[in-house]
């Protein structure tokens, strides 16, 4: 790669990271270490905002979320799925708009670049760059349980976004397995949000 290309790459990575930081929040509770969360699209927000994170990041019913601009707010857990390790938090007032595109897991290619955002060890909005490691064997047509990426994460990345080179959301970082990172596919999260949000009383 030429020098101008690598400089261009650095700029683009910085720009992609900046975009992702805008939808990444910090999730703080008394009982657990600080994790990350993702501002989620909601069809009818009615002034409320939705954050998706891992269930293990919010052991209780409440948490404080801090947005990228520094605003901190109380949020409450409105849905939880311990098996998938997902939790949804609501807070008010919600952001004006969140635009996020979901990447279909079947279209992921081994070797393509991915970016993760998280808050490791006190650092806020740190980024890690990696590649898609491999497809998990899933029955024909079904979504695999995990997206595996070769990217070095730390606990503060839990609940945060994993995105592709175009900024589309690939998954929610959930676990570290050796030197690999496991993420819940974004499509799975989307389906879960739609399903459980319907159950939540306004």
């Amino acid at each position, binding site marked *: *790669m030429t020098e101008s*290309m690598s400089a*261009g*790459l650095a700029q*683009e*990575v910085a*720009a*992609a990271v900046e975009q992702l930081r805008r939808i990444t929040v910090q999730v703080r509770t008394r009982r657990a270490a600080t994790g990350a969360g993702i501002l989620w699209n909601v069809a009818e927000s009615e002034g409320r905002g939705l954050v998706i994170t891992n269930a293990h990041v919010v052991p209780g019913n409440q948490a404080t979320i801090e947005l990228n601009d520094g605003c901190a707010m109380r949020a409450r857990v409105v849905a939880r799925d311990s098996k998938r390790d997902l939790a949804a938090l609501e807070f008010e007032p919600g952001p004006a708009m969140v635009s996020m595109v979901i990447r279909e897991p079947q279209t992921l*290619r*081994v*070797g*393509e*670049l991915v970016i993760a955002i998280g808050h490791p060890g006190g650092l806020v909005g740190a980024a890690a760059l*990696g*590649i*898609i*490691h*491999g*497809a998990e*064997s899933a029955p024909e047509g079904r979504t695999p349980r995990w997206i*595996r990426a*070769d990217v070095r994460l730390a606990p503060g990345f839990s609940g945060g976004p994993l995105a*592709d*080179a*175009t*900024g589309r959301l690939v998954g929610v970082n959930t676990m570290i397995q*050796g*030197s*690999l990172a496991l993420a819940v596919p974004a499509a799975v999260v989307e389906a879960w949000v739609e399903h459980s949000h319907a159950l939540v009383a306004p």
Partner: protein
Amino acid sequence: MSTVLQSLSTELADAVETAGRAVVAIHARRRIPASGVHWRPGVVVATHHTINRDENITVTLPDGTTAPATLAGRDPSTDLAVLKLAGQNLPAATLRSGTPPTVGELVIALGRPGPSVTASWGVVSRVDGPWRTWHGAEIDSLLRLDLAIYDGFSGGPLIDAAGRVLGINTSALARGVPVTIPVATVERTVSELLERGSIRRAYLGIGTQPVRVPESLARKLELKSDVALLIVSLESGGPADRDGLLLGDVLLELDGAAVNDPTDVLAKLGGDRVGRPIAARVIRGGQVKTLQLTPGERPTSRAA
């Protein structure tokens, strides 16, 4: 929009897809399958330490089908093994043998521990010159990698961003550190294994210990080095014994090169030395003598 980022991402994914067409999974042990590379038509290269049996070896091809394979030979000292695969229409790997890898070069390690291909990325962290493994085999260059090892790493190829193969990966040659055996070494070993089933090595039948030659003696004999090898054991009837080497002889040089360590002797015992006399300079009785030793062939274990 991010063009360079997307281009790089696509380039890497393309490299994986292209090179992945020559990567197979090998079932030759009880646990997880090992990876292998379709190196030449009908020839699959794998790592020796992942092949635990001689028979009933099967291979999973990129299209998901299984085919039987036979073990053609192995070389424990380079950790390489060669399998023969019959009647498959598989592309052979595209090798990059012209330009050697450079430190910092972006590389991907591919594996196929199951039906699908897996990848980890990183950089070449060190490129050293010719290197001798602890069994005495010569590896053309030592490529150390800074990337993650995972199931299926050993036996898979290291590829560059264009999808060309730089060598075969193994985690068993340098104490768990991921290392790549370069194309040149693999080619040489594959050729010999296909021809003979094992790698030929020369043998003298001596056991040695490094000793320090007293300074006065080293000076008197005008020796280049004050460390030499004392012959502490000699195989009765072995090549060295037969050619007149004695216990207590102090070996200074073999074939004109000073020997300070047993591995220096191994360096002179490549397969091409079998049956060819080699000059040995020794101290005996206070004087330097030169003997002609003709190595025999080292007893090795065969694949089957």
